[in-house]
């Protein structure tokens, strides 16, 4: 898919800022408008009142399934668990073939190879969390090795974490350089850059980190690892969606957004779709540009979907745990 396909006006590519120094990076980030927290939160609260019913809801549920990065990132993960998850990713509801596959499975690098095998012949991508996930506390060499191994094992997508310590202490160049290096190590794999917004704390930081990551070459910007207490929130998603919208407008390059962590219900996920729809616009409403990093969300969406078909509430046991 080219950028022209998704309807964004391409501007002169020379307008893409080429960052050649930390000073310049700092200037670009400093030129970004601030975020008024009250206004941002009020905006998402208002969007949360959108009423998505009947056929819109049905479309939304299918869209959500197709946008899910079905995720397991536990120390206790086993090849067996990954295999079950991959089966579910291909065919979330074996009784209903109209349910789309999910977008990807997301696993630790050592499980990529197995996942890849289980998903052969499907459209489901394999994403690997790399760069010393989730803390990002390792040398660049270690991080790059982590990435290379995942890519070598067949990962289609790499979810990296930024160095929040470096970002918060103002070493922006270091964060930037790391993303550039990881992007190079990715080769043809897509790079999702996890900002860990719960640790960045302010919306201003989220906006600046979003731009930093996009300028450094991110294909996706992602909210969270899911490993810190505060994960994706609607206002954070709003700020990131504003960033990708504005970045596309000024550079012509379309970057995706992935919200991850804590999104468990179809209702919550629909609220995110509304935010996407009314912020970045309908062109972002596709798996290529918007993802949910989640595990239990899928079953709730399937339950809602089945309820719509059957006209009655259904038991959780209708769907497999993994």
């Amino acid at each position: 898919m080219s950028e022209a396909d998704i309807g964004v006006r391409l501007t002169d590519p020379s307008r893409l800022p080429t960052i050649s120094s930390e000073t310049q990076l700092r200037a670009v980030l400093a030129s970004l408008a601030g975020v008024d927290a009250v206004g941002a939160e009020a905006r998402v609260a208002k969007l949360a009142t959108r009423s998505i019913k009947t056929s819109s809801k049905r479309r939304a549920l299918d869209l959500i399934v197709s946008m899910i990065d079905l995720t397991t990132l536990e120390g206790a993960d086993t090849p067996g668990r990954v295999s079950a998850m991959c089966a579910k990713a291909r065919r979330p509801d074996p009784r209903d073939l109209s349910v789309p596959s999910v977008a990807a499975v997301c696993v630790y690098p050592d499980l990529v190879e197995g996942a890849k095998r289980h998903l052969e012949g499907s459209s489901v991508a394999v994403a690997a969390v790399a760069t010393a996930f989730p803390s990002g506390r390792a040398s660049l060499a270690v991080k790059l090795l982590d990435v290379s191994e995942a890519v070598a094992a067949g990962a289609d997508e790499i979810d990296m974490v930024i160095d929040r310590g470096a970002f918060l202490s103002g070493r922006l160049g270091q964060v930037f350089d790391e993303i550039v290096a990881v992007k190079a190590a990715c080769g043809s794999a897509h790079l999702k850059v996890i900002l860990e917004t719960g640790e960045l704390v302010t919306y201003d930081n989220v906006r600046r980190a979003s731009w930093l990551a996009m300028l450094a070459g991110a294909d996706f910007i992602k909210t969270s690892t899911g490993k810190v207490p505060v994960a994706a929130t609607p206002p954070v998603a709003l700020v990131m969606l504003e960033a990708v919208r504005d970045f596309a407008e000024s550079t012509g390059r379309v970057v995706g957004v992935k919200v991850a962590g804590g999104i468990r219900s179809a209702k919550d996920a629909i609220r995110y779709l509304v935010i996407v729809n009314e912020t970045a616009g309908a062109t972002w409403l596709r798996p290529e540009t918007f993802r949910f990093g989640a595990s239990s969300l899928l079953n709730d969406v399937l339950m809602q979907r089945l309820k719509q078909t059957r006209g009655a509430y259904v038991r959780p046991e209708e769907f497999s745990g993994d």
Partner: protein
Amino acid sequence: MSERLDVRKTYKLVINGAFVRSESGRSYEVRHAAGDFWANVAQGSRKDLRDAVRAARAAQAAWWKATAYNRGQVLFRLAEMAEARRDELAAHVAAAEGVDAPSAASSVARGIDRIVWYAGWTDKVAQVLGGANPVAGPFFNFSLPVPSGVIGVLAPQDSSFEGFVDTVLAPLATGNAVVAVTSERRPTPALLLAEMSVTSDLPAGVLNVVSGLTGELGPTLASHEDVDGIDLEGAGEHHDELAASAADSIKRVRRASAGDYAESSTSRLRSFVETSTVWHTIGR
């Protein structure tokens, strides 16, 4: 021994910090309450009022922007000057109101004390009339009393000094500029105080004082569109007409009251202030 002939003073208007004869060139005689000649005073015209309103408008913002502490000091300075000329003021009050010397002296004393009272109000008004509002949301919200702007005062006809002080100082204390029309028949105590104001630290234009015929000046002041509020204390028989013409520019109107010029209520202070409420978001 022949009696020395008086040097008679014609009392002038105070407009924009200057003593002016009326633009019209007219003056009129003011008499003792008993009927004898007392003084010649300038008879202000509509154009004098126009000039006075223009001066007041020009002066108001700076008067308001001066610190409340500074405004208090300036008004207190006026009280100091009046105190130094108590006897003169008392003689004028006695002549104007036909009261005996002790009554006139105590009236002047009360008037000066009233100036002091208002001088002390300048930096309290915001705390007493304003405050923080606990709105149900992430906002810092506060209300402040701000001056209405340019206030026309038709000073009381009877109480030549105390009444003038009370009606004029209240709007001044809250940061307004004033165009005052004195008592028609008893103008000199007010004009004396106006003289003092010129040599005090009150910036030019903040207090403008015009003597003349209330029936002629009142309608001009009440209908003047660049006057934000009007005190009709001395409006007399024209009171309701003036109140009606003030409606054309939605003026704040203070109707004539019972004539208590030393009450402890904040009523007069509240007459010419606006509550300005500012909301600001609170967020990281």
